């Protein structure tokens, strides 16, 4: 636990030029962790990295395109089922891992055509509806294993190397998260990224300034779904079992909590949010399963924490953990250093 706590402290944002140094430090710690963590903690770490991958994409969708998805777990589910179905039908697992994000992204692109005409709370409910429909339909399909799901998904094998234990999957998940973060970072800093921020503030103004609003929204929705699908693929190979029950609506809400807590529209925020929420839940789970606690204690504690975190952060820290802390830091830091090396951080749009 102490190691994890130290890492989460190091994940704190450092403004301006030390940013690269911080990134390298965090990457170093993240790479060392699977080797130093005690056995059972590694699997928590893998699941944390998988969540962080989904949350990075969702954070981009919420913070930059200003669209809330309450059904992001639907795309994780599509990715996981793609990986599981292809693997159980004899397709090489490395191809399955590539297909997972492709199928999830394509599904999002297709669903997005009608869906993204909606905004705000309507889109939130529409994405939720899509996930409920998917859960209900998949639960009835014989070929997808119905409510029982698909068991015995083979382990991932790339070029003859089989990812067999938790540590191998930790590195796989780290690699996947790394790719996700790099892609997101490059998009955010590019011209389309600025266009996305513009359309989050006002679609009309962005369109009149020449931003292809519909196309960009579509693209970022598909991309965030592809990240979720990729994470789902890793999940399927790691756990070896997928069922509709593994991707409940609550999982989607959990992703939203992570995004809001960390701070929508920042990569550091997504990582910090996923880390903070996962660690908190882990601690509470330890407390809840102690002797003398009632059987429902873990569930009660985790729901209470989700609820409190979400309400308190939205009301009192609407920008989220990372942007708020970064602002404080910048104000405290001597003006000279802050101004010289500071790269202007993109201001995330408010959560809608």
């Amino acid at each position, binding site marked *: 636990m102490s190691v994890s706590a130290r890492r989460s402290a190091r994940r704190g944002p450092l403004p301006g030029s030390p940013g690269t140094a911080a990134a390298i430090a965090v990457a170093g710690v993240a790479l060392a962790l699977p080797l130093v963590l005690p056995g059972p903690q590694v699997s928590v770490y893998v699941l944390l990295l998988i969540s962080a991958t989904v949350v990075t994409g969702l954070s981009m969708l919420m913070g930059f395109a200003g669209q809330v998805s309450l059904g992001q777990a639907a795309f994780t589910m599509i990715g996981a089922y793609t990986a599981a179905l292809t693997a159980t039908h004899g397709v090489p697992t490395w191809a399955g891992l590539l297909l997972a994000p492709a199928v999830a992204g394509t599904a999002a692109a297709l669903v997005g055509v009608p869906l993204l005409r909606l905004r705000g709370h309507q889109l939130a409910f*529409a994405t939720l509806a899509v996930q409920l429909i998917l859960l209900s339909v998949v639960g*009835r399909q014989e070929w997808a294993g119905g409510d029982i799901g698909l068991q015995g998904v083979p382990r991932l094998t790339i070029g003859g190397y089989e990812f067999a234990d938790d540590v191998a999957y930790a590195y796989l998940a780290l690699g996947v998260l790394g790719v996700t973060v790099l892609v997101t970072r490059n998009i955010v800093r590019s011209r389309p990224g600025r266009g996305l921020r513009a359309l989050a503030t006002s679609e009309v103004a962005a369109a009149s300034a020449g931003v292809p609003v519909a196309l960009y929204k579509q693209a970022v929705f598909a991309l965030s779904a592809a990240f979720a699908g990729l994470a789902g693929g890793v999940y399927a190979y790691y756990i070896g079992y997928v069922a509709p029950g593994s991707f409940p609506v609550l999982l989607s809400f959990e992703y939203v909590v992570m995004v809001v807590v960390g701070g929508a529209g920042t990569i550091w925020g997504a990582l910090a949010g996923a880390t903070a929420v996962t660690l908190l839940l882990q601690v509470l789970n330890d407390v809840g399963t102690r002797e003398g606690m009632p059987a429902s204690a873990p*569930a*009660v504690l985790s729901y209470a924490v989700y*609820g409190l975190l*979400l309400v308190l952060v939205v009301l009192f820290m609407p920008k989220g953990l990372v942007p708020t802390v970064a602002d404080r830091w910048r104000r405290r830091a001597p003006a000279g250093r802050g101004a010289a090396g500071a790269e202007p951080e993109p201001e995330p749009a408010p959560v809608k």
Partner: protein
Amino acid sequence: MSAFVQYLVSGIAVGCGFALLASGLVAIHRVTRVVNFAQGMFAVVGGMTAGSLLSSGLPHGAAEAAAVLVAGAVGLAVGFAATGKRGTSPQSALIVTLGLGFLAYAVEIMIWGDNPRSHPGLGGSVVLFGAHVQKQSFLVIGVAAAVFALLGLFFGRTYTGKALTACASNPYAARAVGIDVVRMGLLAFALGGMLGGLGGVLLTPLQPISYNGDVLLITNGFAAAILGGLDRPGVALAGALTLGVAESMVAGYGAASYQTVVALVLMLTIMMVRASRRTALQEEAAR
């Protein structure tokens, strides 16, 4: 024929329950512009409280009324959290109500456990066109009709009801004539809580309710309410009845497992059609 009547009546009854939920959603949205995600939670709280009060020995009627009042108090509390802090945008308030739904899960599991619960309603059934129809279904329909009539009188004839409507149509002008818009918002939340709670109290004897049943309830309520753009209670009532009957028919003649899918697809279709009639410019101007 007998099966058809049975499905029709039970569909209308369930639809009336959705309509109560949806009208709460509409009442809150009209006044505060907040889409209350915790609306389904009110129904769960109402239904479960009624069950507990009944088993503790309170007579029918008193227990149900008390449960509705409890749900109203919960609604007021949700209103305080979601709109009490100045400068909370309706979008943030939606996320706040989502969070409050989680908190309610924790409390509900602590009090009632995580199994579905039900309580006895009006027992027995009557024979109508050769079909056995539960008496509770008629009770739901009757109460809902009475409540809608009362709501019509409340909004049309009383000072408070007119003040609520004034806040809905133009908050600025309402404030200018001395109406406390914030207090009216809280009142709307309390009213929404009571309506949601009543829906839960009436529906629970027909279908057992569990703590996480609120997601389906809120999606059904939202689907009904969105038909009138979340602003017109009459249209929401029509939408809810359609939804209830459609679900009941699909469950009866087709596959029971697809009944929620029908509701969701209907909701998506309605939203798409409505969205295609409004441009981004209109929507941003309305903000």
